[in-house]
């Protein structure tokens, strides 16, 4: 089991790192426009937590969600094509980087208005609870979102009605350029859960196994009908907030210190030491991933853009209603 899981983790890590690197290159070349928020440094959070959930559960994520989508089963082709704004993208070329959707896999976004993930997740949770369904909702948010009203409003309602929602905080210490001690009176986000009687815990978000184990426990808690749970994963992003941000507000020393705890490297070392993986395994996986990412970029570049810009604003044709807006 360990070997299989270790292979999976290593594959996910390699894919996350290489995919985002390729996205940055394509952005620089002008093939991707808009805002592009990349994940290097934070990989352990999405991978460790999503691998601890069951297929069939719902996932609601932020605008930094390429890796979440791919770990949840959306193909790298569909994600890269969406970044390019192509019709073959997972949102048909209408969402872009920040709005990835896959209804079939229950990956319900991709939200780029900070704090929207909370009520969306609670609403899905309400519907599941109303139907006594066994699934749960994984709701991702950043440290900055914890200061939105929706965080407090939703935690209150989720606790009040024991909704099956697992709140997962990706605390990367920065809301764009404002460090957490400058935006939060209580920087330990997990402690805020106690205000609503929700169990919350802190976990090292640079350690994929720690995130995995913590999430497994939390998923059991939520699935058993005990109501919501909150995990704060303390992590770090190596790059700026988006491609438009150089991250100049952080010291080189700080970035170097965190890079020394790199989730991918530390997991590789651990896996080799425990003999879950061999050096040859790692190289083979990395080569596979290189091919997958190259294929995704080629697929995106060759795909056509969407052709009907006015489609899907409404379900029915507006003509049925005797007028166009």
């Amino acid at each position, binding site marked *: 089991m360990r070997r299989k899981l270790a292979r999976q983790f290593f594959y996910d890590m390699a894919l996350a790192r290489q995919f985002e690197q390729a996205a940055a290159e394509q952005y620089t070349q002008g093939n991707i426009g808009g805002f592009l928020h990349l994940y290097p440094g934070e990989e352990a959070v999405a991978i460790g937590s999503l691998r601890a959930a069951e297929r069939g559960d*719902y996932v*609601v994520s932020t605008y930094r969600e390429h890796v979440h989508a791919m770990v949840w089963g959306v193909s790298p082709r569909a994600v890269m094509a969406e970044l390019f704004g192509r019709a073959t*993208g997972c*949102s*048909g*070329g*209408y*969402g872009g980087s920040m*709005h990835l*959707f*896959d*209804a*079939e896999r229950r990956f*319900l*976004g*991709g939200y780029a*208005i900070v704090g*929207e993930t*909370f*009520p*969306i*997740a*609670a*609403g*899905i*949770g*309400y*519907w*599941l*609870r*109303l139907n006594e369904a066994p699934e749960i909702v994984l709701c991702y948010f950043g440290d900055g979102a914890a200061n939105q*009203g*929706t965080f407090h*409003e*939703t935690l*209150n*309602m989720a606790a*009040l*009605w024991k909704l099956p929602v697992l709140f997962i905080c990706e605390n990367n210490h920065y809301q764009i350029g404002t460090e957490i001690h400058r935006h939060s009176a209580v920087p330990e986000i997990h402690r805020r859960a106690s205000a609503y009687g929700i169990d919350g815990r802190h976990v090292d978000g640079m350690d994929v196994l720690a995130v995995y184990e913590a999430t497994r426990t939390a998923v059991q808690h939520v699935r058993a009908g005990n109501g919501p749970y909150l995990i704060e994963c303390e992590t770090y992003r190596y790059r700026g907030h988006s491609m438009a941000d150089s991250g100049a507000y952080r010291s080189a020393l700080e970035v170097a210190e965190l890079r020394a705890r790199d989730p991918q490297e530390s997991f590789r070392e651990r896996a080799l030491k425990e003999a879950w993986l061999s050096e040859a395994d790692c190289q083979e996986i990395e080569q596979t991933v290189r091919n997958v990412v190259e294929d995704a970029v080629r697929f995106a570049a060759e795909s056509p853009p*969407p052709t009907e810009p006015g*489609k*899907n*604003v*409404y*379900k*029915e044709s*507006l003509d*049925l*209603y*005797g*007028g*166009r*807006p």
Partner: protein
Amino acid sequence: MTRKRNGNFGGIGTARPAPELQVWEALNIALDEAMARDDAVFVLGEDVGLFGGSYRVTQGLYAKYGEWRVRDTPISENSFVGMGVGAALAGGRPVVEIMTVNFALLALDAIINMAAKLRYMSGGQLQVPLVVRMPGGVAKQLAAQHSQRLEHTLMNVPGLRIVTPGTPQDSYWQLSQAIAADDPIIVLEHELLYFTKGAFDAAAAPPPMHAAAMRRRGRDVTLIAWHRGARCRRGRHGACQEWHRSRGHRPAQPAAARSAAVARVGRAHASRDRGGRGLPLRRCRRRNSGEPGRNRVLRARSAGAAAGLRRCADTV
């Protein structure tokens, strides 16, 4: 004659409808029938459950369907409307009540950024069959914050549909149609109309959700209005007025009222316009103007000021 207020009005065809009902009762019947017909329909909002709704619209439903389908929420407008969006994405058909339109300003992120955009941004994968009901308009001595209309804001948002029922029959028809539809629909009600009476026939076939209704034929001028503005009044200067009740605001203006009536009467007057409601009329005026100077479109609008603290209802 009004019905019993126990909320148990029965399903379609189980009871002969009373000839006259109040608006709140018609809305209540529409909700009750929709909930009985489809388990996916549920209601949430402030005081919709045990209390029965601020204007009685959800009266009796809590006892009949239980707390999970008639959910009293905390005062958290943006989040409980957003929850409605989330539940709709997962397969529910929530009907969210916001106590007044003024509080909907706290929920515009959920309405405009979430509900109206998700079908489009997901490339048509997702749908948001959400109904948001709320009363607005100028009521009695509530001051400027509590005397607003938001048609002008909401009607300019692609992805939303807006209906403005003002009679018991329209309230029943349009709320039933809104719940059955797969798009987010805003049902704007009027605070002073809940307890007004009108003819009601549950068995009558409804017109399309947005079609305007002609209330009175006329010769000299066409008047287009809604809610309290759509009550027919006599012309002061002997003009023979033609009255149309506008029932929907997005898609903008029903073809019937905008071309046929204007072409026939030659002059249209769209009242209560603060948000560009006259524009489609002006476009059609250009198309229809056979006689120069005859096809004039005028807009009556409220003064560029917030509503005052009047004891009697302000009709502008």
